[in-house]
């Protein structure tokens, strides 16, 4: 409104700049607007950098441990425990110490990051796809489709995820199950996480689609003879992008914590494969003497989850200018 006032007053200071900048703003796409806001958020930028760094470290794990001169994550070395079998603490050769099998904790922490990121990103991806699909169908078609899908969502939501995890984890952890469709380890945990989290996305998407389908642009599209599929894919889906991105980015850290929790309980990723959760679990019985064994994976977990949470907050603020902050 102040722009209008400046236009009306001839020769008002900055009047011309206002006009110019308005013309410029009008030319910006939503993506550019988002990027401009995101760039000004220092915390979000730092967390994005941290996440990129973590991803690079995870991808280049073999190279990274070579640079630091560490042994592989599964190299056991009985010489690194004292005469009572207690592992040795941090030293220059093993900055994070070793565990009770003489495996290097730093190298296991780096490889554990691979698991955490894989589970977090792939699990969230699958859950998001299922959630969007179910939510869109339920919201768009309403009626019995909606009733059926909504009840399904309720049932899945009321299953305690941890117990489901223990059940499926125990059943599938050794040989896999459903005729090999679910592989033990990473497969089980990704399956579990996508199974347990898609209803949340579906609920949010359903609500959004319910209100979007009544909007004029959908009506216009239908008036032009567009098919249901086209309306859903070309009209409704793009409008869902921002909330879905924000929700998924906040779901990744939750899922990383879930992976750690399930591995901690012994039904997720099992040793010898390193995961932050199972390292903390293994370290728990002797955590008062070999503190490094649980502290470092925990800190890695904390940094990763924190970075994703901060990035998610930043994305939400940048994508939703009206968010209360």
């Amino acid at each position, binding site marked *: 409104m102040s722009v209008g006032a400046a236009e009306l007053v001839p020769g008002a200071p900055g009047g011309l700049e206002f006009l110019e900048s308005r013309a410029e703003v009008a030319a910006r796409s939503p993506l550019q607007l988002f990027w401009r806001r995101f760039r000004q958020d220092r915390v979000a930028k730092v967390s994005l950098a941290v996440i990129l760094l973590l991803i690079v470290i995870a991808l280049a794990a073999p190279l990274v441990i070579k640079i630091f001169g560490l042994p592989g994550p599964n190299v056991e070395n009985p010489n690194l425990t004292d005469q009572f079998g207690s592992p040795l603490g941090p030293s220059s050769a093993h900055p994070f110490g070793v565990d009770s099998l003489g495996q290097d904790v730093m190298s296991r922490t780096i490889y554990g990051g691979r698991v955490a990121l894989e589970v977090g990103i792939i699990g969230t991806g699958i859950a998001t796809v299922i959630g969007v699909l179910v939510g869109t169908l339920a919201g768009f078609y309403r009626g019995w489709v909606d009733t059926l899908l909504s009840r399904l969502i*309720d*049932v899945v*939501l*009321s*299953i*305690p995820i*941890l*117990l*489901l995890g*223990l*059940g*499926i984890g*125990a*059943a*599938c952890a050794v040989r896999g*199950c459903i005729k090999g469709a679910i592989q033990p380890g990473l497969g089980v945990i990704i399956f579990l996480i996508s199974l347990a989290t898609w209803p949340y996305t579906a609920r949010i998407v359903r609500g959004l689609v319910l209100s979007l389908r009544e909007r004029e642009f959908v009506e216009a599209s239908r008036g032009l003879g567009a098919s249901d599929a086209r309306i859903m894919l070309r009209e409704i889906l793009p409008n869902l992008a921002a909330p879905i991105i924000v929700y998924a980015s906040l779901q990744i*850290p939750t899922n990383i*914590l879930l992976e*750690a*929790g399930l591995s*901690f*309980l*012994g*039904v997720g990723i099992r040793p010898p494969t390193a995961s932050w959760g199972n390292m*903390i*679990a293994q370290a*728990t*019985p002797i*955590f*008062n003497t070999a*503190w490094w064994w*649980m*502290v470092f994976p*925990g800190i890695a*977990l*904390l940094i990763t*989850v*924190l970075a994703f*949470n*901060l990035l998610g*907050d930043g994305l939400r603020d940048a994508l939703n200018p009206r968010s*209360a902050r």
Partner: protein
Amino acid sequence: MTRYIIRRLLWGVVLLIVVCALTFVFFRVFPTGDPAVLRAGRDPSPGLIREIRHSLGLDHSTLDQFWKYIKGVFLHFDLGYSYYSRQSVRSLIFERLPATLSLTIGAAVLWVLAGLSVGIISALRRHSPIDRASMGTALLLISAPEFWLGLVALLLFSQDIGKFPILPGSGTYVGLTSDPGKWFTSLVMPWIVLASTGVAIYARLMRGSLIETMSEDYIRTARAKGLPEHRVVRQGVRASITPIATLLPLEIVRRDNPRRFPDRPGHRTARGAIHHHRQHPRGHRLCVPRPTGALLVSAPAPSCVAR
């Protein structure tokens, strides 16, 4: 409203049965290990296994077993029998209930009080150093898993192994009835650790909710007619607490799970959820032993309360 509540409760019962059936299927049909074989000891003869299977009622069809189970639950409040610890599930649950309740209720009180006050202060002093510090801490706490936070808290503050020995460590728990003072001090650390994530979540929610409320028109009206600021704030707080209060029952159930118990033998109590419990010398046994136990509490609650 009454009709609505009745409908929700009935729906809760239906859900309960569905969830019971699902877990039943998981634990009976999936090859987690035959309880009869587990029980028979080393190198059992097929006859012995058959006999044990018969005595446990496992030779009936799954459907038959499920029907018997459900009947037991509803008619006699018999929650079944733990093959692992060879006790009735009901006694396993009630044995641990006092400790679980002490832990959960104390932590819930702490997280509501602390969470709401931090949230209110942050919202009223928006963008101040206090706000930034408390929101930063909140995010940090949300990002740390409790099973790790508990261990770190013990390493730092417990009297037996901590760097700054100020609080009783693990294995000091006593029942409320035997020594209230000791009961309280032994639970301080578990309460704080257990409540930490809750406090963080509540502080964030309360802050967001209050900031939104304080920009409403009626708050401006209240200020314009000259109400003292503390009464304006009171109005705002009252309006913004409602949506948060509805979350509480859900959160209590969510928090009340064995993984989060920050005692020394953390993973042992936690694993207890599958393997029921293992007695260990220093910690206390504190977990809902059989999935059914947690299911009974958690399954109807979300469906009744969430909407």
